[in-house]
């Protein structure tokens, strides 16, 4: 007798709990990627992102200043400084240290190590060191110091600066950004225009073979676009379109049309018949009905398809590679630019994380601006 209306079932809590768990699980990789995007390559390679949020004990190797920095004080050769002042080093508190890779915790902070002929080295808790010798220091590299230090969390915006400002050869990120917009916007508008007309005709105009035509369009939905890549490119080259914006717009339009027509037609069929018949009786032409009645009423469906198509063209790499990016290098898109930033052997992991968030920003804005239509539009045609 738990399920009396008005009373909350105890299951509600289980449901809420599992929703929270699922959402967290779902967001966890994104969160990791986000944290990683603020870390350097060496940090990523040495510890996991979950550890970077807290201060931690780390073993690091830092070099003292090179021998050419030595000073002569009271007949002693001295190299002084702070180990954490080196490039890329993260400040911390030294607990133990050593000078040999075989024994990295030979001395406690504050102790002096006697390295024989090489000199005497003292390292303090805050990383200050003093390296003293009776004879001149030689060599071209500074003494290695192995530190065991507790370091606080450290993040930087270096990756973002690198991704946003990198001018690599023929192309830069800002150019790629505008190129991507040049691809995405027409590739979203053109299919919507055509599909809206087609959907109206297929929904409300009587002509022979209409049902067959609808079945054909639905059938096209299952054709994978990869099948068409090379034949379509050959066709483009034969007709003289070649590789370029026109080609990629046409390709995106073609690949997007079946879904667009199907979605819009099902939505338009569900509009009240009376309105349209009234308009016909009042002497409206088909075009007037379409523009004045159908279009305003179908706005949710149009908007939701626009979001789909925009996201797809924004994130697309395959179609751009085949139909747009030619060997001149002037027409690169963002997805391609990001791949290029990864380097010849794909090792620049930190760039990948950062670039993902740079690239995601525009689709996120589009999504939040239009999301109220997305939910309504998703139901298009499914509920009458």
């Amino acid at each position, binding site marked *: 007798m738990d399920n009396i209306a008005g009373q909350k079932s105890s299951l509600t809590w289980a449901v809420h709990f599992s929703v929270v768990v699922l959402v967290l699980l779902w967001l966890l990789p994104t969160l990791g990627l986000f944290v990683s995007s603020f870390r350097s390559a060496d940090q990523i390679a040495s510890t996991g992102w979950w550890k970077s949020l807290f201060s931690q004990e780390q*073993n*690091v190797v830092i070099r003292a200043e090179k021998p050419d920095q030595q000073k002569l004080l009271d007949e002693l050769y001295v190299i002084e400084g702070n180990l954490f002042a080196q490039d890329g080093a993260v400040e911390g508190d030294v607990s133990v240290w050593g000078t040999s890779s075989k024994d990295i915790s030979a001395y406690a902070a504050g102790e002096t190590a006697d390295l024989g002929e090489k000199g005497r080295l003292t390292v303090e808790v805050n990383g200050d060191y003093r390296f003293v010798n009776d004879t001149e220091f030689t060599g071209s590299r500074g003494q290695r110091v192995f530190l065991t230090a507790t370091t606080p969390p450290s993040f930087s915006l270096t990756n973002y600066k690198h991704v946003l400002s990198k001018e690599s*050869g023929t192309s830069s990120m800002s150019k790629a950004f505008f190129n991507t917009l040049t691809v995405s916007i027409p590739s979203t508008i053109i299919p919507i225009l055509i599909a809206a007309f087609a959907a109206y005709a297929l929904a409300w105009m009587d002509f022979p073979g209409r049902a067959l035509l609808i079945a054909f369009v639905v059938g096209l939905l299952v054709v994978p676009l990869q099948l068409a890549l090379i034949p379509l490119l050959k066709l483009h080259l034969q007709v003289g379109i070649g590789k370029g914006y026109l080609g990629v717009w046409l390709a995106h339009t073609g690949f997007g049309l079946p879904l667009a027509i199907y979605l819009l037609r099902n939505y338009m069929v569900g509009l009240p018949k009376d309105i349209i018949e009234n308009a016909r009786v009042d002497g409206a032409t088909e075009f007037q009905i379409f523009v004045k009645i159908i279009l305003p009423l179908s706005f949710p469906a149009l908007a939701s398809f626009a979001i789909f198509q925009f996201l797809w063209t924004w994130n697309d790499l395959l179609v751009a590679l085949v139909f747009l990016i030619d060997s001149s290098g002037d027409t690169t898109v963002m997805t391609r630019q990001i*791949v290029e*930033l990864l*380097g010849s*052997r794909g090792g620049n992991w930190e760039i990948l994380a950062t670039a993902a968030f740079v690239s995601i920003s525009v689709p996120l804005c589009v999504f939040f601006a239009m999301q109220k239509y997305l939910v309504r539009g998703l139901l298009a045609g499914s509920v009458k």
Partner: protein
Amino acid sequence: MKKTLMTGAAMAALVAGSVSAQDLSGETITVSGSWLSQEAEVIEAVFDIFEERTGATVKYVGSDSFEQQILIDSEAGSAPNIAIFPQPGLAADLASRGFLTPLKEGTAEWVRDNYAAGQSWVDLGTYANESGDEELYGMFFRVDLKSLVWYSPENFEDAGYEVPTSMEELKTLSDQIVADGGTPWCIGLGSGAATGWPATDWVEDLLLRTQTPDVYDAWVKNEIKFNDPRIVAAIEEFGAFARNDDYVAGGAGAVASTDFRDSPKGMFASPPQCYMHRQASFVPAFFPEGTVVGEDADFFYFPSYAEKELGNPVLGGGTLFAITNPSEGAQALVEFLRDPAAHEVWMAVGSFLTPHKGVDVSKFATDSARSMNDILLNATTFRFDGSDLMPGGVGAGSFWTGMVDYAGGKDAMEVATEIQSSWDALK
């Protein structure tokens, strides 16, 4: 001496006569390849010299999916003028389908005379065309040396180890390190979709050290089967390193799952996770930031067995230029690669080796690069990376996955038989 002078003079005349005098202003030459950031900037610097001399415009576009891209573009007829192939197998494939244009006459003679081990570079760039006739299509530029072992000299010094000069000594050293409580090797096979390739280099290197070069050549052509006892022995030789829990950082189980880009970092960790790392000449790109090659990190030649008397075999790889869309400028650009200046630009930047005998070795960025190039020029046997020469389904497919299986504990004979049957299926 007189002869070198003569060739030098002839070359100068050639350079002066054909490259600098040619006026190509207004012409655009498109080039695509797999070099991305860092390397892409350097190759553009090389092309800048060419642009200055001829007035032509060279546009380079790099792509990480170059192998697929060039196939699509050739197939559709929108190929760039020149493609820079990372391995000869793909170029041979395109040549046999009629997508490549033979290089100018005389190129073969020039390569034979001016590259160290010239004939082998000609052979590697010569493929059968559509009608089965052999022609020279590829000009090699930039070579990678694979038979190198990287180490940290300071860690060796701390522990009192010496650089080994023979395979026997290398194995003794490995045992010594284990006895001292350390781990000798860092091995990582992970590389995304190409996981397993570092192991193929190991097997090829070890095959060259246990068998004669003829066996290697026959194996690459599959005249000697993959499951031949000699090949299986080489795979097991690799297993002696990679499947030994004491030898490998993280244990044998970590070999297949460690990324090859991360594995060398173990040498520079505190305390060091391993002492040695066998990898090609490009690997310093993945050392921690600020590592200076020659001081913080150094390399030695992956030694051969002293008792086997097989000389000093060297395994390498290389990239080649081929013409995918013929034009006057494209031929001129390939010809420009004969000019030592084209090689010296990159030598000055680093991680570039060249078999060109006419270059000024003082232009190398570091002494270590110079000594690396010496290994290349002094090799008694130079062999190209076998997996790059095998058909794609094996060399970039079953060989990779087979080695991952082997590293994971599968029997060597079983793995070799599977690779052989995948090769048979391709015929």
